[in-house]
């Protein structure tokens, strides 16, 4: 398998102060993490809370530097953020003083090389892609949580990154909105061919979205197993994919892998973070 993003033996640790004795200790978030992500694939990463899922994403995004190991994209080491990757965060990171349209244009202004008219046109195209053409002139406070996250996705896709990184983007949404956005995301991914890395703590979400589901172990985080998911998601709008037996089987497989992580804390893990 040719890979676009490669993580080799990645470790990440921070110094934190213990709760009991205020001593500085090493807090190991990730250790010996290997992961290969193929071009155009949809990979979901699921793991127990606090296992370092978001840390993995920050590393790929270039927002953090690993303590050890290497990260490459198309063979080039990742040294910082770049327009080949974009990130959708859980919190809606729209600029509140810009309309939906202008928020998408914001990303295009950062990319540069487009005239004002081209930016406007491109923004409209991507708002249409996420079904928000009618809301282009609305300010974020006039949009629902789901709509805001759609704008954020449109913004992230507008400058046509090769990799879309998503950090629990639907974590704050209600169940029905979340399902609808999951279906939309699959269809957008199929149409654009963008590589997607999607972090979640929700097993159903991981199985529904991912072609592969990477299951992480609890701290120190590493990839415990990768589950290949072969689901027919076509016509997800009318057909309840989540109710099929295949879906249940994949879900159970991931659930079992995660359940094993509920073992008692290892002695090494006494330096808890508040």
């Amino acid at each position, binding site marked *: 398998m040719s890979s676009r993003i490669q993580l080799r033996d990645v470790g990440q640790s921070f110094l934190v102060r213990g709760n009991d004795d205020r001593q500085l200790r090493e807090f190991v978030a990730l250790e010996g993490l290997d992961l290969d992500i193929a071009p155009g694939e949809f990979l979901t990463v699921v793991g127990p809370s606090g296992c370092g899922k978001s840390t993995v994403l920050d590393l790929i995004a270039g927002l953090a530097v690993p303590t050890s190991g290497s990260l490459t994209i198309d063979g080039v080491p990742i040294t910082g*953020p770049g327009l080949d990757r974009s990130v959708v*965060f859980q*919190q809606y990171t729209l*600029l*509140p003083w810009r309309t939906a349209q202008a928020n998408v244009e914001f990303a295009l202004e950062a990319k540069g090389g487009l005239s004002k008219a081209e930016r406007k046109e491109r923004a409209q195209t991507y708002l249409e892609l996420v079904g928000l053409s009618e809301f282009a002139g609305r*300010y974020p406070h006039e949009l629902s949580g789901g709509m805001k996250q759609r704008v954020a996705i449109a913004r992230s896709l507008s400058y046509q990154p090769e990799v879309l990184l998503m950090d629990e983007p639907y974590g704050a949404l209600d169940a029905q909105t979340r399902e609808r956005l999951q279906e939309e995301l699959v269809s957008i991914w199929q149409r654009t061919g963008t590589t997607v890395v999607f972090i979640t703590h929700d097993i159903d979400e991981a199985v529904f979205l991912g072609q592969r589901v990477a299951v992480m172990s609890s701290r120190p985080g590493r990839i415990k197993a990768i589950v290949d998911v072969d689901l027919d998601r076509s016509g997800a709008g009318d057909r309840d994919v989540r109710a099929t037996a295949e879906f249940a089987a994949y879900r159970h497989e991931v659930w079992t892998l995660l359940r094993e992580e509920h073992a008692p804390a290892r002695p090494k893990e006494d330096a808890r973070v508040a």
Partner: protein
Amino acid sequence: MSPSLLEERTEARPNPRQEASVRARGVSRGRRRAVTVARGVGGLVTLAVIWEVLPRVGLVDSYFIPPLSTVLEAWWQLIVSGELWRHLQASLVRSGAGFLLATVLAIPLGAAVAWYRPVREFFQPVLEVFRNTAALALLPVFTLILGIGEASKIAIITFACFFPILLSTIAGVATVDAQLLRSAKVLGLSPVATFRKVVFPAAVPTIFTGIRISGATAILVLIAAELVGANAGLGFLISYSNNNMLIPKMYAAILTTSLLGLGVNYGLVALERRFSRWRS
């Protein structure tokens, strides 16, 4: 009669959609507004009547507090003779110059101070000391250094207006949502572009808090400085009329300063609203 604040705030409310539908049917919104305005006008009229009647019936000495009509007559004389305009102009130039100078200096400096944490931590206590020094206490200092002319008056207004704007700019820039900064970083925005497109717009509402405080301060310090020593201006007109026992004229000048303060405040609020329309 409307309920008290307690009942008004705790009463079961219709949900937003019901409220919107009530509004769409036009049942109450316009009428409610008219009632609100009418009550406000009622309050002002009551004040005017009290002012007019108390001196006339002799409850207060009409020499020290002349009836409103006498004051308005003196006011009209001031306007017709052009005297009021001369003083108002002098006051406007001083307070406007001081206020603008303070804004132009404080916003860039505040942004620079807030941008670098060590600089901010270095300056913060010094700035707190200055901010808590009453500007008027320094009036003699300014007069000593800059003389009794325009320079010292504009300087002290600048000084008084400077700190609220500076501190609010620092607060606004330093408390920008970290998530917005992260998304700017992901987009590879340069520090200058990040400042221009993310940090500054996000800080504008906070900066305006300081600007509004400064607007009120500018008028306050202006009048005080003119009372102490000037040959024109509303403060001068007040003290001159007082010293020459032109009492109705003095009240006319005081009323003018009230209107000036009101105008400045409303103007700044309108400006603020224009710049932060995006807020819910």
